[in-house]
């Protein structure tokens, strides 16, 4: 029982009960289902497992999934920050309309988004035509995947930064200005450090979402072996071939890498926050 008690006696009641609920639901919703991946993989044996997950096609798909998700997350961090800035700092007609637009990627079935992108960026589509002139291929290329993932991850960044930015008192910026700082210095030295944890959280969420994204990507990626096959697609194609163990093996590695990255980012954030408390 010791394990479930706070270090000191807590004034807030209900620690045991709420902790119990938390553990129970996390188990029911996250741990138990995900552990099935693990248990499905075990019967496979070590050799075939290694063989499956180090197959060149699979490795290429991991590389693609993580790199495209990373690029998209970085892009989202920049654009998301700008968008949040505009939404928080300026009052203009249509602001609420814009604000609602931000959430749309959450609501839209991702396959719909994928199809929209595919039409828009295809060599005969509105935008694809223009890019084709410059010899830039978006559809059937990693670029296309990044475009789709940017769309999917965007709301995470905006929504995590918005409340933090709203909290920043105007006085802080005024103080910096009175001390001789330019707008850029104020942003760089005062605001950015303040927003950084939220920015990191938002981008992490966008990144995590990007790794697992399937629906929107498969329509735009073209799914060329070794080139534009993402990891979730590898899992799907193994399932299509009734190779359940192989699918679990690929999923397990994906899961382990994602989880350790999230843990790492959380640790960075914890360390960032600690000093100022």
């Amino acid at each position, binding site marked *: 029982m010791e394990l479930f008690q706070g270090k000191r006696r807590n004034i807030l009641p209900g620690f045991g009960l709420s902790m119990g609920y938390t553990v129970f639901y996390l188990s029911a919703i996250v741990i138990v289902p995900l552990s099935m991946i693990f248990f499905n993989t075990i019967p496979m044996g070590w050799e075939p497992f290694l063989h499956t997950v180090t197959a060149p096609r699979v490795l290429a798909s991991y590389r693609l999934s993580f790199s495209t998700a990373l690029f998209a997350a970085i892009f989202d961090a920049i654009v998301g920050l700008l968008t949040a800035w505009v939404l928080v700092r300026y009052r203009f007609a249509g602001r609420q309309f814009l604000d609602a637009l931000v959430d749309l990627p959450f609501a839209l079935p991702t396959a719909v988004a994928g199809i929209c992108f595919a039409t828009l960026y295809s060599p005969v589509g509105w935008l694809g035509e223009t890019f084709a002139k410059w010899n830039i291929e978006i559809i059937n290329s990693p670029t296309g995947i990044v475009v789709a993932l940017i769309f999917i991850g965007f709301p995470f960044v905006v929504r995590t930064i918005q409340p933090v930015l709203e909290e920043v*008192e105007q*006085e*802080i910026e*005024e*103080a*910096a*200005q*009175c*001390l*001789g*700082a*330019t707008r850029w*210095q104020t942003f760089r*030295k*005062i605001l950015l*450090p*303040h927003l950084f944890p939220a920015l990191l959280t938002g981008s992490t969420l966008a990144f995590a979402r990007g790794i697992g994204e399937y629906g929107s990507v498969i329509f735009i990626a073209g799914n060329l072996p070794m080139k534009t096959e993402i990891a979730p697609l590898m899992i799907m194609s193994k399932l299509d071939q009734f190779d359940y163990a192989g699918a679990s093996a690929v999923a397990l590695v994906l899961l382990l890498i994602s989880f350790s990255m999230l843990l790492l980012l959380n640790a960075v954030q914890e360390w960032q926050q600690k*000093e*100022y*408390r």
Partner: protein
Amino acid sequence: MGIELQNITKKFTGYTALDNISLNVASGELVALLGPSGCGKTTLLRIIAGLELPDSGKIILEQKDTTNLPPRKKNVGFVFQHYALFRRLTVFENVAFGLKVLPMRERPSRSAIQERVEHLLKLVQMDWAIKRYPSQLSGGQRQRVALARALAVNPKVLLLDEPFSALDAKVRQELRRWLRKLHDEIHVTSIFVTHDQEEALELADRIVVINKGRIEQQGTPQEVYDHPVNAFVYNFLGNVNVFHGRIKNGKVTLGTHHVDAPDELKHTEERASQAFVRPHEIGISRIRSAETDLAGTIQEVRIMGGQIGLNLACEGFEHPIDAEIQRELYLNLQLAKGEKVFVSLNRVRVFTSDYEI
């Protein structure tokens, strides 16, 4: 002249925050802008700092027209009511900020910055906290750091916006005295905004009383307190009893009571007037010593430390009168609720302005 304000006007939608304000502050002077909240005093301070632009008028700092300069080029130190320290920076980094953002050519060396910050923190008695973060400091300590930060850039003028109002009474008083002492040491031209008359009286070389975007009166604390030019200033500078009456034939009626009108109002025609008496300028005794003494009954006794507050119902007066007496007198006269006493109004001020309280 340290600061010259010429005909500053600022309108916000629906009201005029500042109405043609002109004000001079001598170099090295410590001036208080005193007024009720919403009177425009903070707006005026922000305009001097460049955080707000006036609709018309000029701001001249040390002979240089700075009306249209952005805040970062004005070289003013600004201290905010809620400190506005940079939370993510240490005390050292906070104070060093103004030096570190200087263009490369003007920026002091690392060691010079270190030295200056240490010197300033010593000056505000915060050198022990150099490595702390603002969240680890109390309100009073934060405000000291904020002051050191503002002074780091060698400002031409120091502007303080209700610097002590977020602090508790004891700390406020302590910091007030400390700031006065500090100002005597460094002599930087300073303006502070306050709604606390005690703070203004104690701290300032000169008080500027502002009401509804206009300057009502300016002068030394002594002048303003002893010779208020109108009812507003008198009322704002301390607790008062107000009597609405009439002036007639050189006499002012207060209830059933009459007092001589002040010289300048002796020959005025009959008109409405207001008479004011400060609670501590009311005498209380057990025996009637003068014809004009009022008979009263103590309705309430408030123990306020060294002073005792009495609420008196006086014959011929509609509203009760507040008086403040020394504790010693209170004990000597053995006063208590319900006791009968005689009340003398020692210093009655009469104004005929139409100012309403």
